[in-house]
């Protein structure tokens, strides 16, 4: 059923935190199995607090996994690497650097490119995300949507094998969010990078993805999986397509089951103090 040559493969991934305050072990993710195919756009949705961002951080190599295996092109993920680049929920831009300076920060941190090459390519990347003319602006002078474009350009400039996106549009207003989704698809269709997209927005997940995975409530596992067979390129009208609405209903129902769980069962995920 899965593509043999999976880009990213997770088997039985468990992620645990030690909570200093209550001195308890907290299980955020408990046995996630999933694969992302090369060139695929995969979205993970789930109820709030289900550990989807935690999972993405582990894929990025920022968090260790307690059990299972997590491989990219067959290699175990242990730390951040140039083969992955993250687009963060909070833009995380250096306020004292211009747009250009922030876009090159990723490659600068990796040390993978000379400064002059980085600047040349960054200018092209800035154009690609539609920020031409703003190269010398400071982040605090930009709107939220523009800051996220910088965030995206910074990740794209590192030319990763896989793009990780952590609810990048969650903090934007509804109109800007829709525009950014459209632009993201446009950029993605030009590069066709494997993408793993985390969101709590069901419409967003369907609109962008080839496949949507639904997580259970915490501790998160894969609950459901849905192939999105809407033709590309997709414009925003796709969101009113009957097929789109069927997907939306199915995912929403799946998530609702996770929300409608009695409180005492919710608490089971957390070991007693």
């Amino acid at each position, binding site marked *: 059923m899965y593509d043999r040559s999976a880009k990213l493969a997770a088997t039985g991934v468990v992620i645990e935190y030690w909570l200093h305050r209550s001195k308890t072990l907290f299980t955020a993710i408990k046995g996630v199995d999933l694969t992302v195919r090369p060139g695929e756009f995969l979205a993970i949705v789930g109820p709030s607090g289900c550990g989807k961002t935690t999972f993405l951080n582990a894929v*990025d190599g920022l968090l260790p996994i307690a059990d299972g295996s997590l491989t990219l092109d067959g290699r175990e993920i242990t730390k951040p690497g140039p083969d992955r680049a993250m687009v963060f929920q909070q833009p*995380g831009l250096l306020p004292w650097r211009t747009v250009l300076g922030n876009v090159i920060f990723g490659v600068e*941190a990796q040390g993978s490119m000379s400064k002059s090459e980085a600047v040349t390519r960054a200018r092209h990347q800035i154009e690609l995300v539609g920020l031409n003319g703003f190269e010398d602006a400071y982040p605090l*002078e930009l709107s939220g949507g523009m800051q996220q474009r910088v965030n995206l350009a910074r990740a794209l400039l*590192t030319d990763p094998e896989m793009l990780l996106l952590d609810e990048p549009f969650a903090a934007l207003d509804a109109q800007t969010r829709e525009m950014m989704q459209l632009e993201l698809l446009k950029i993605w269709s030009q590069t066709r990078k494997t993408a793993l997209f985390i969101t709590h927005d069901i419409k967003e997940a369907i609109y962008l993805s080839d496949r949507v995975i639904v997580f259970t409530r915490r501790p998160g596992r894969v609950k459901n999986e849905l192939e999105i067979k809407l033709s590309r390129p997709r414009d925003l009208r796709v969101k009113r397509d009957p097929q789109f609405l069927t997907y939306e209903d199915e995912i929403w129902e799946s998530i609702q089951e996770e929300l409608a769980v009695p409180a005492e069962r919710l608490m089971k995920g957390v070991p007693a103090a």
Partner: protein
Amino acid sequence: MSIKDSLDLRGTAVPVTSRESDAPREKRSVVQPSRIKLYEPLILGTLSVVLALTAWQLVANARIYSILFLPGPWDVAQAFVKLFQTDDIWLDIGTSGTEMGIGYGMAIVVGLVIGLLMGWYTRFQFALDPFVNFFYSTPRIVLIPLFILWWGIEMQPKIAVIFLGALFPIIINTMAGVRNTEAALLRVARSFGASDALIFRRVVLPGSVPFILTGFRLGIGHALTGVVVAELIAAKHGVGQLIAISSQTFQTPKMLAGVVLIACTGMLLTAILQRIENRFQSWRPQIR
């Protein structure tokens, strides 16, 4: 004009331009505020100072108190000019300036290094915290008698007091700057595989600059206190010594001239640092 003015009551729009009330609006540029607005702080500041000096002069002129107790600003100004007609003043300024330069310079270098280390390495902070807390909560000038015992009344005790005075605000602010690095920025840097050295140079250090400069600025106040108080207690030369001697010989205008000299130095140094701070903050949008 209000929205209502531009609408006919029956709902048909009336061309706005034909209205009498639509006199050309006062043009106000968003980019450049008017001249008066621009110089307002300067004008008001000068005005209030002039007012205060006049009031002081009037009270002094009334001579309710003798010149010994309350000289007027004019007396002080005259004393100030006279002060600079002698050669002694340059020896005093030179001495205090040297003490200040060495003590404060050392405090900047040492404070910056220790502050950065304490901010970056938690263990370093744990080890040094007791000392920093002890010295920061003690007025360092109480150590002057000890330093005089060690080094006599030459420059060394003053340098030591200035150094200790400026050191701790610099350490504490620098440390706070490093500690205040935004977690989100660190996460981004880590995600892109940045080395610790790169994180320190490109994220932590630039982010700490405003804190560090605030530490420098606070340090100046402490350093000036140190130089004056140390010289008041015992010295051969120096502006503090000048103040002490003038006071003991009932030359109140001269004493106040010395005070003005110290105050001007402090204001000048602070202004210079404020300038530097502003330079580093050019990325911050203007508040007004």
